[in-house]
């Protein structure tokens, strides 16, 4: 179970998640400090560890814009769960590639402070007792998640290729 700590609207861009001015920083060990850098409270509580492993919820098109992979690694570094009505394509793919499993839940009804849990293809809002269906990842993308991300998935293909 995890607490909803922040609620976003539509079209949260990767510029909002990880501002361009920090893009020279690329290492997944270093990107988390700049997570939502322009959202002072959110950034502060993430960096203090207070909101580690908590839940962010958003409406449509979360992660739109730039292909910067730092937007996925910065979220992953704080152990956040992101639940949105839907995600932009490149951000969704980057997250899957890094092993960050985003939750697509179009009908979610939750507010800041609610406790939610993800189980059996549903998001359950423990505070209200209501549950909401998750749109499962397409099978092709699930294969990458199950392999632990695109690096191990590619490595296996590389090894297979060299066996032939």
């Amino acid at each position, binding site marked *: 179970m995890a607490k909803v700590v922040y609620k976003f609207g539509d079209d949260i861009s990767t510029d909002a998640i990880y501002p*361009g001015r920090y893009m020279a920083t*690329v290492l997944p060990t270093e990107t988390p400090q700049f997570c939502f850098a322009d959202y002072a409270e959110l950034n502060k509580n993430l960096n203090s560890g207070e909101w580690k492993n908590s839940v962010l919820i958003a409406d449509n*098109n979360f992660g*739109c*814009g*730039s292909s910067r992979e730092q937007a996925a690694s910065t979220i992953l570094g704080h152990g956040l769960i992101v639940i949105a009505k839907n995600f932009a394509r490149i951000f969704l793919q980057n997250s899957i590639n890094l092993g960050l499993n985003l939750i697509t839940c179009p009908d979610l009804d939750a507010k800041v402070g609610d406790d939610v849990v993800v189980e059996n293809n549903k998001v359950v809002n423990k505070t209200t007792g209501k549950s909401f269906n998750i749109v499962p990842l397409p099978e092709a993308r699930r*294969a*990458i998640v199950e392999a632990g991300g695109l690096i191990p998935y590619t490595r296996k293909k*590389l090894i297979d290729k060299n066996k032939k």
Partner: protein
Amino acid sequence: MGMTIVEKILARATNQKSVKAFDVLEPAVDVAMSHENAALVINQFNEVYQGTGLEPKVWNPDNIAIIFDHRVPAESSKTATNQKKIRDFVRFNKIRKFHDIRSDEGGICHQILAEYGYIKPGYVVVGTDSHTTTHGAFGAFAFGIGATEMASVWTLGNVLNVEVPETIKIVVNGKLPANVYPKDLILYIIGKISAQGANFKVLEFHGEVISNMSMSGRLVLSNMAVEAGATAGIVPADVETERYLKAAGITEKLNFVLPDSDAKYCQVVEINANELTPMIACPHTVDNVKSINEVEKKHIDQIVIGSCTNGRIDDLEIAAKIMKGKKVAVGTRMLIFPASWNIYKDAMKKGYLEIFADSGAVIMNPGCGCCLGVHQGALGDGEVALSTTNRNFKGRMGNPKAEVYLCSPAVAATSALKGELTEPAIGGF
């Protein structure tokens, strides 16, 4: 059942007779482009090889392009160190499509791929930059990917687990009015279908306005297709594509990939170009699009002309004609950054740079920096920018307390002279 352009390209790239939307494929890549974020790709690429006992070598150096453009010349030691690391990698792997920080080969990655003839109709193109959609203007399937996915491409030569996208057909008939440009058209389309209207889909552009449009204009449409969420924005190749590539030195016969007449589209959007006006994308989303007359006039602190969207020679020509012998308004600053050094030098020969310099505009070296707030041209608190770039997200030009409006070069140049949003004159300068 007939196929769309993207379906035909993906069938070819996977050696199949036909494919359809939602098939999952591993297409071969013709061009894999990166910029400074190649530093992260290199890390991930080495990680793939970790523990395999194999030497990390790219699958085919001739299919890889690397162009420095986001922070040129380096704004920090961190960037300079990343660029040095990439140069070493380029040398070791014998990557020849490498464009360093030099005035005889440099520029913004998307302009370089176009003007050096690296992209041909029917190609599968991936780039670690969301505006890789630009290259759909050549009738190719070009889309943005992340650094880890590029590491996978460098290893195997294929993009893994690509789901064939559905296609939205955009048909633009009529004629663009005299002060309306491809930028206005694409802003109108994004406003109409929304920032997520084409998410996971391809836009295919058709109609007489598109057939009559120059490659420069088509590059604008495809470039900004991603702002409607599109995976790619494809213009069918034709004589204009051939003309452009011939001028870029491509002599081989081109293979146009065109849609079947019974191709299946998930949506058709028809637009009458006669009715369009200059359009403005207002803060803070690209789909917050209004006709110029509906936008409140306010003081503009910074005008920007340039970027992979609108930094080509015809863009600079329009601005130079409007600004010749005139001055940028007092209290407004204007920055001009051509999309490549070839364009810069062409503009120098044609006298445009002199016109800009005399007007008070600052001419910057080709690069992306200002558009995404990473290198020069940052905005102050409460300031307003009017820009020909492609994004107006909060914080985009380096300051979340500033506002960015997007427009065509004609609107930017006209507004620079007044210091506030101004409609360009119709049919003359």
